């Protein structure tokens, strides 16, 4: 018996292995985002939010930050899970097995990235449920909300996969999320509308790619974003393509995987 065009058992083996790793730590994995989100609501929603002028947001401040909070944790979960998932076998040496298996690069990526995205989206949805306990949340465009969530999760998991291949050690795994993604998320309108910023910061912010992701995602909730939803969608697609391109190059050249 030979393997056909698509090695579904192989993809499933990687996916199930990764999901099993997540389930081993499911309680800490879910408790952390719930507690963090609650803290954000206490600090930003109640303490600071009550002093914010939210007339041009159209919704109370507490509701306004929900999409941003979901994105913040989605970015971190995606990068952490996907980079750890591929870095660990490189570190322990067990990577020899997927590399010697009848799996195409696409199938390997699908297994690792699919599992990381599943976990990250689950955490985001838990945050949405937690937020629901504190504030009123409405989702005007549920289809687009799911579409953005899946697209952004896929993009950041691909990005995390690249980080996991690039990193030479565990400390390097932390550098990109801590030094790049978290600051850009905070500055990308997770907690405010960029229209609240004075110039030149308002224009400078438009060079932050995260702005477009958060804005688009917020649009699916409240029908209003900092930039038009078309641009948000186009930027998300662009990041996805860039990540796919880099991964294509990694497997083509064997960069840090094969000599």
């Amino acid at each position: 018996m030979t393997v056909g065009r698509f090695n579904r058992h192989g993809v499933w083996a990687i996916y199930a292995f990764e999901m099993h790793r997540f389930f081993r730590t499911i309680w800490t994995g879910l408790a952390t985002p719930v507690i963090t989100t609650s803290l954000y609501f206490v600090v930003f929603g109640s303490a600071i939010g009550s002093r914010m002028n939210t007339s041009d947001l159209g919704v109370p401040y507490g509701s306004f930050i929900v999409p941003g909070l979901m994105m913040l944790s989605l970015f971190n979960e995606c990068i952490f899970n996907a980079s750890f998932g591929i870095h660990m076998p490189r570190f322990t040496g067990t990577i020899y097995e997927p590399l010697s298996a009848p799996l195409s690069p696409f199938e390997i990526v699908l297994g690792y990235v699919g599992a990381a995205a599943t976990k990250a989206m689950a955490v985001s949805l838990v945050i949405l449920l937690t937020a629901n306990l504190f504030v009123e949340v409405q989702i005007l465009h549920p289809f687009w909300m799911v579409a953005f969530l899946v697209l952004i999760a896929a993009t950041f998991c691909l990005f995390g996969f690249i980080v996991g291949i690039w990193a030479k050690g565990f400390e390097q795994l932390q550098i990109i999320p801590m030094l790049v993604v978290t600051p850009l998320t905070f500055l990308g309108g997770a907690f405010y509308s960029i229209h609240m910023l004075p110039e030149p910061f308002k224009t400078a912010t438009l060079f932050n790619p995260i702005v477009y992701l958060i804005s688009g995602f917020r649009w699916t909730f409240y029908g209003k974003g900092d930039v038009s939803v078309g641009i948000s969608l186009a930027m998300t697609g662009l990041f996805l393509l860039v990540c796919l391109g880099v991964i294509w190059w990694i497997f083509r050249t064997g960069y840090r995987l094969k000599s």
Partner: protein
Amino acid sequence: MDPVISIRGLGKRYAGGHEALKNVDLDIERGEIFALLGPNGAGKTTLISIVCGIVTPSEGTVTAAGHDIVADYRAARTKIGLVPQELHTDAFEPVWSTVSFSRGLFGKPPNPAHIERVLKDLSLWDKRKSKIKELSGGMKRRVMIAKALAHEPEILFLDEPTAGVDVELRRDMWELVRKLRESGVTIILTTHYIEEAEEMADRIGVIRKGELILVEEKHALMEKLGKKQLTLALSEPMDAVPDALAEWQLDLRSGGNELVYTFDANAERNGIPSLLRRMSDLGIGFKDLATHQSSLEDIFVSLVSEGSAA
């Protein structure tokens, strides 16, 4: 019958410029045990890694079970199992899961009966629920073999299967390899222990500095390897070997202080008793004697010097 693995003009140059393999041609016959013998760094692992798809060749072609390992990698890799030299394992996984995982990875649907058979054959059945980190080194090695056998490969690569394994476990490993061959699996193993190749292999390939310098039936090679030397430290130095000792073709060394007799260790009559009797008849005394068997190192030296002389 077509060879199960066919390697043609295989070369590997690493990014740093190191040439790990040079123009290797090799055919492995179906059902044989082939030992790749060579010192550390000779290119054994590189050769195996290329066939298994972990290292990209710089030049040359390889087919496994008739499938090109690059163009038709899915079909080729499905037929191959690999047990690497290092014990790379997922420490927190139970034995059963990790072996089942390997089967899935290679595109086979779950088959608990097969996994059970493999674990029982490898005496791992009792440990199936144990986490890998709880197992001894020898057990971990078995888990690696079980993983490689989980997808029912026709070809099994064992990279240094007994490196760092104690004598008793080594015997078990040899026994296991023989059983695998009986079940129809072709086995290619690498080793730098000559006894290991001698004990198990049908054919032996000697690799040195990336070149396959010799491929021979074990018995033919063992005859070459079977030479032993007897060194006699003489009580009195002599100028020349006496004519009466001519039939033993002795060498005089160390300024006439040592007589060296080269003999076939596998022969029934090695000529030592008769040599010693004749020497005592002639009144030639010696104060010490030692025998020395050609080591792998010596064989390499002689193979290489033969090569350059030709």
